[in-house]
């Protein structure tokens, strides 16, 4: 289950099986599970219907018995960030779901000062969008779109709220897993990435390796923690706690293939409706991490939500690093030897 099998790729610099980078059709089988392993599961988080209720955060804390902490990871402290309704601040060892809140505004050009008032657009646009029902998207989502509670306009400003429930991406090429020296992080039969707490020695290597800044160390404990994609619930045939708690089904759990198809449909539907900025994030299997197991529909650029715009698994460059390390080591030996040549003093 560990990445011992990647030796050849790392040493030759060639990567025929996309072991370090690129799309992997069967990431679970690739890690040595028998052919009858379960399908790869994941999350599709549709932020366009997120209402920022934080039910997912609470459900995750409850189910996984995570300690309370503030946005700085201080356990048993109530801290307010003062930045928005977001007092969780970031994903961390004790917060495996994190709802980001971004309040945005923009100027509306004065030639159309009455945006948002009835009849302002010459009757071309109905006051309410007709209900659009998409396969697989719950009615509540469509309702949310009709009323559009996340956006309003006042005077010459338009205001909107972006909310997004962030989580570990369960990457196809997971840097955290690649760099873990103890084999504590492993790929489960569901294709997810999980820490084994009884093995982690707290070396902390996974923490800066994750390109999304997900996994973190619990200060008083020394070990690292992150979303397990509710491994314990999956093995019992249950949905992850956060997905079952989400009232708008912004968090959708399921087989990754099915989720990807549903997300593509949803994106097309939103684009048809002219929702600007709608995009999928982590859906593309040719991206820097080989596609994420937990991917998102966003309404603005990823960095607005605190996500990296173009993450790349650090081990993509490992063959080059090992080559440099080898060349440097050879250089040391060669130069020290050369220092012994010539005059004796």
């Amino acid at each position, binding site marked *: 289950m560990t990445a011992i099998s990647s030796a050849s790729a790392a040493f030759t610099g060639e990567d025929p099986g996309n072991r370090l980078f690129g799309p992997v059709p069967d990431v679970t089988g690739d890690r040595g599970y028998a052919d009858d392993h379960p399908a790869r599961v994941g999350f599709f988080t549709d932020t366009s219907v997120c209402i920022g209720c934080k039910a997912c955060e609470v459900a995750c804390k409850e189910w996984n018995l995570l300690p309370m902490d503030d946005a700085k990871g201080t356990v048993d402290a109530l801290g307010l960030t003062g930045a928005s309704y977001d007092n969780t601040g970031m994903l961390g060892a004790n917060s495996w779901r994190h709802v980001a809140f*971004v309040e945005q505004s*923009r100027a509306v050009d004065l030639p159309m000062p009455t945006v948002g008032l009835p009849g302002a657009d010459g009757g071309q646009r109905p006051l309410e969008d007709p209900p659009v029902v998409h396969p697989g998207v719950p009615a509540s989502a469509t309702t949310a779109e009709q009323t559009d509670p996340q956006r309003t306009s006042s005077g010459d400003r338009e205001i909107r709220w972006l909310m997004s429930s962030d989580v570990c991406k369960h990457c196809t090429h997971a840097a955290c897993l690649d760099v873990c020296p103890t084999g504590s992080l492993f790929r489960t039969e569901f294709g997810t990435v999980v820490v084994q707490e009884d*093995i982690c*020695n*707290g070396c902390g290597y996974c923490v800066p*390796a994750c390109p999304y800044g997900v996994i973190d160390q619990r200060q008083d404990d020394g070990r690292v923690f992150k979303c397990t994609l509710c491994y314990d619930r999956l093995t019992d045939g249950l949905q992850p706690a956060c997905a079952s708690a989400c009232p708008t089904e912004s968090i959708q759990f399921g087989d990754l293939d099915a989720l990807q198809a549903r997300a593509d449909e949803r994106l097309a539907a939103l684009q048809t*409706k002219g929702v600007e900025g709608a995009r999928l994030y982590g859906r593309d299997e040719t991206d820097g991490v080989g596609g994420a197991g937990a991917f998102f529909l966003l309404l603005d650029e990823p960095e607005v939500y605190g996500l990296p715009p173009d993450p790349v698994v*650090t081990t993509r460059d490992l063959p080059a*690093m090992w080559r440099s390390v080898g060349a440097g080591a*050879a250089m040391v030996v060669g130069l020290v030897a050369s220092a012994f040549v010539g005059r004796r003093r």
Partner: protein
Amino acid sequence: MTTGEAPEGVGAGAPGAGWRRADGPPAQDREQRRRGGGRRGGRGEIPMVDEAEFTSYYGRPVIKPPVWKTPDVPLYLFLGGAAGSSAVLGALAEGTRRPALARVAHLTAGGGALASVAFLIHDLGRPSRFLNMLRVLKTTSPLSVGSWILAPFSALTTATAGAHLLGWFPLLRRLTGVGAAVLGGPMTTYTAALLANTAVPSWHEVHRELPFVFAGSAMAAGGGITMALTPLDEAGPARKVAALGAVIEFGAMQRVEHGHGLVSEPYRTGRAGKLLKAARACTSAGAGLTLVAGRSRPAAVVSGALVTAGSVLTRFGIFDAGMASAKDPKYTVEPQRARARARDAAGSREAASTGTRP
């Protein structure tokens, strides 16, 4: 919905479609990059609007800064490097009948290796589980590969140093000394992969140069310590190693500090900038003094101490620069954003030339 009708001049195609974060404090607003921010330490502060602006989530880091502690980790890097190059020096000194140099080099290697292991263990969140490092061997984890180098290396160098101190088993001592020397080379450079194989922008982007910086720095340290402690008539090789190492360290650091645009910036600013400036001064003064007056004992001690100090400061500076680049979202977001834009532009050019719409 009011979507689709983006106001004139903003355009739905523009990044963000004109949306700005609503709350006011400038530090939390769309950060503006200053002209020339990627060069010359951010001098020439003419704000550039739009084009080069970047966004973050309330200024929070995108990646998690390393939880590694200072001074533990920089010292672990330094000691491991000094021990590695000393082990090579020691074995060759033994082979070329320079007993005093061999003794000093082997004692340096043994002491450095042991201290390096101690710092590594001290830095673990769960020190009692140190041996879990040897549960598996993973070539994708420089820390795993490194543990498998460090463990036998420290055993061999300790044995060699012990045999020197006690004067026992001269033949066995030669064997363990040679074994340690074989691992000595990788000892000096694997720690560079350890830092580079992270998402920390200023460490990862310099992954080709960093092993050479560490190799040079290790030679400077090992050579510097042994030249200072060895009688003149045997210290010749140590002097050469120290001077060569200092030159390599200096040269490779130039590439790191200037060759990578924005992610080179943390190496020139703040605490890291100061440390690395001091490192440059020590390294170049030490190397110069070695070449000019290395054959006098007092000068050898001073110049050995200087290049060693340069090596220590370099490790601390590199560590600090990485931490700074991890804590400021600018260094994560801007290069990635530029990369994504370039790819999109290339994609739409290609689409235009083949007649398909993007």
